[in-house]
């Protein structure tokens, strides 16, 4: 029986924590009450990408997109939309400028400007159902390579496509595979890097949760191309849902004869095992990751030899990122020419980004290479909330940099981003507004890398520590102008002499903020002021006597008892006791507390 409607409900992490499950059960209940449960198919999919609007769903055939769903909305959706064919306007996205609600999912600027390759199925299929993947051409690329293509032809196709690694460094994938194929060795390995260490990035997780088979199929094709029989997926322990879905998908693929011995009746055999990380950022680096898969401490080692020649247990190993793998089947099916028609001269295809921070539409997007940062932040991301002023966009994570407004027209490609002192990285994009202090942000990233430094090489272990001490001194109001030169000097040494990418990239957040936001550093040092009012040692709170209504709310909420009542009944902050937690500032209903 054809269905009355297909409902796709996003079951990505953000929607789940926004209450997706209770909405879904309410919807099911209402469908049953209306006696149309059998006529509607509900599919729980991976992340739509519109995380800020969750829980969300789309009703097909019309493609109507409903947002911010609550259990009590289920009734209207069933009674109005499904039974009477009337769109429930109050649950639509309101397009601010047009002053009219936008019903159709494809009209949304958020989706209109995207091109989805790696995310082609994420949000469209039930990740727990291999049939749905297969129905959307899943595993046909594998069929094609096994029956029609020689391994060398597969490698040629990937080389011609211009695909570059999406894990950060952008190394040409086809070339890596060719080296892997040519490397001497009886046993070879394939690894999928799903460590996703950039704090503030969730692209790989969304792919694994929303379309695990695309990664498995990509790895199968890679294994065939280089001649590997065994693969590993190294995934971080912080992603329990992704691990669960991946484990399930691997089982399904096995039962369909797509993994294991004699795949699809050919003499090609391949199997995949999951290895779980344990909270060490450096394990995203390929040589450290390999040590960790071997069950050891995740310490990087100098390269060469590169993993393609001597990797896991000393055998040739090709390691690629989740998103890189997810691109492979689509390139094989649609061809290298199609793929390389997207993007710029040196950066082909698309890139997935996780949009977060001070931006209206936080979430997950995939855009063609060459799109400008401005288009991402304003056209897709909907700009900065609360009428605040844009300050910077951080790209590339802890090894990346902060790009200011002047450079928002920069096209997103490996070379252009690098020329600004940042890196493309794995796809974390964090927007900052006027309330963020750039010295504090630099300190944040440096304390991250400092903490995650594995300690093997001195420049990284000691150098980042010294740099951090200088930054601490500056944000404490004890900085001197010569600290800036010292910081730059140290940064160069750490960058040039560290053993692995962690240390080499660690100075980038400091160097880019020094380059684009030097005036903020100077304000901290010379004026002993934090212009964004973030660095606690440089700010203080005070009750504005004229505004104080003597309501005592600040007094009652101060956690350290630093507020007392004056003879006339107004409240006063004891600066000696104040820990600058800002609670009084937040709770005062009359804005009678000032922050300076």
């Amino acid at each position, binding site marked *: 029986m054809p269905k009355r409607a297909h409902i796709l409900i996003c079951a990505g992490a*953000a929607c789940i924590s926004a209450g997706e499950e209770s909405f879904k059960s309410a919807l099911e209940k209402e469908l049953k009450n209306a006696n149309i449960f059998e006529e509607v198919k509900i599919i729980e999919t991976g992340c739509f990408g519109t995380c800020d609007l969750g829980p969300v769903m789309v009703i097909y055939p019309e493609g109507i997109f409903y947002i911010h769903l609550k259990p009590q909305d289920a009734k209207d959706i069933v009674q109005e939309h499904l039974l009477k064919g009337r769109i429930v306007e109050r649950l639509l996205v309101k397009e601010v400028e047009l002053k009219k609600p936008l019903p159709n999912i494809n009209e949304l600027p958020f989706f209109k400007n995207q091109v989805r390759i790696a995310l082609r199925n994420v949000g469209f299929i039930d990740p727990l159902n291999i049939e749905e993947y297969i129905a959307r051409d899943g595993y046909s690329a594998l069929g094609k390579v096994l029956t029609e293509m020689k391994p060398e032809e597969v490698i040629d196709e990937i080389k011609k496509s211009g695909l570059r690694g999406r894990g950060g460094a952008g190394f040409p994938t086809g070339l890596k595979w060719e080296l892997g194929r040519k490397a001497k060795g009886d046993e070879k390995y394939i690894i999928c890097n799903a460590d996703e260490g950039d704090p503030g990035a969730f692209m790989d997780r969304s792919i694994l949760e929303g379309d695990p088979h695309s990664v498995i199929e990509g790895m199968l094709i890679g294994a065939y191309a280089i001649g590997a029989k065994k693969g590993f997926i190294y995934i971080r322990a912080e992603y329990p849902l992704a691990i669960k879905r991946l484990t399930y998908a691997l089982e399904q693929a096995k039962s369909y004869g797509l993994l294991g011995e004699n795949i699809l009746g050919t003499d090609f055999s391949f199997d995949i095992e999951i290895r779980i990380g344990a909270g060490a950022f450096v394990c995203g680096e390929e040589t450290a990751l390999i040590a960790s898969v071997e069950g050891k401490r995740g310490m990087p080692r100098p390269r060469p030899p590169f993993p393609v020649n001597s990797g896991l247990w000393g055998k040739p190993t090709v390691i690629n990122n989740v998103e890189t793998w997810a691109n492979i089947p689509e390139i094989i099916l649609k061809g290298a020419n199609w793929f390389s028609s997207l993007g710029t001269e040196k950066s082909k295809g698309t890139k997935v980004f996780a949009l977060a921070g001070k931006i209206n539409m936080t979430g997950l997007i995939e855009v063609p290479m060459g799109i400008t940062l401005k288009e991402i932040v304003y056209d897709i991301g909907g700009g900065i909330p609360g009428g605040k002023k844009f300050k910077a966009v951080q790209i590339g994570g802890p090894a990346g940099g902060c790009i200011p407004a002047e450079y928002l027209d920069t096209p997103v490609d490996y070379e252009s981003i690098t020329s600004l002192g940042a890196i493309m990285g794995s796809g974390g994009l964090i927007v900052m507004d006027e309330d963020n202090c750039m010295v504090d942000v630099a300190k944040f990233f440096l304390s991250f890398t400092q903490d995650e430094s594995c300690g093997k090489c001195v420049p990284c272990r000691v150098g980042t520590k010294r740099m951090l001490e200088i930054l601490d001194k500056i944000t404490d109001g004890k900085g001197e102008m010569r600290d800036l030169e010292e910081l730059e000097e140290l940064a160069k040494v750490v960058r040039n002499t560290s053993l692995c990418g962690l240390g080499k990239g660690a100075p980038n957040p400091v160097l880019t903020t020094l380059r684009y936001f030097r005036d903020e550093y100077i304000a901290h040092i010379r004026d002993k002021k934090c212009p964004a009012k973030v660095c606690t040692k440089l700010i203080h709170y005070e009750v504005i006597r004229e505004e104080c209504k003597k309501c005592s709310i600040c007094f009652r909420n101060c956690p350290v008892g630093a507020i007392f009542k004056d003879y006339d009944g107004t409240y006063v902050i004891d600066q000696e006791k104040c820990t600058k937690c800002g609670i009084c500032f937040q709770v005062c209903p009359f804005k009678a507390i000032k922050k300076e």
Partner: protein
Amino acid sequence: MAVKLKISEYAKNEIEKILEKFSGVQGSLIMILHAVQEKFGFLPKEVLELISEELKVPLSEIYGIATFYSYFRLEPQGKHVIRLCMGTACYVKGAADLLTALEQMGLKEGKVSEDGYFSLDLVRCIGACSMAPALMIDEEVYGKLTPNNLKKLLEDFRKENP
């Protein structure tokens, strides 16, 4: 809190089962530690000694791994675990203020509260960046927090989970 912990027959059995499951798997030590921690909530010293004996791996090596990876813990946790996200997205949206607020409520990073009810861990990105700043209590994610609604959240949580 100072109750002495000991290894029981039950625990020994469970560990045997885990070791059995991974026997013959190359480089499985980290996976074994994951399984043990999932079972007991942390990696007790006696258990590590037992694993060392069984696998014929020096205790120093096992200890080296358990301390290298921040996910492994050598001490028991509180009854409920708060994981405060200190990832970039949460940080730029005020995670530091949440930490201050938690500290003012008597919680400390990596420590169990005096009554054993909560322990606090700082983590990096729990993937809830779109709801930043966020934290997890056990397996639940709570987003869009402020120092104020955080205080209420913890109070309500205690009431609902006595």
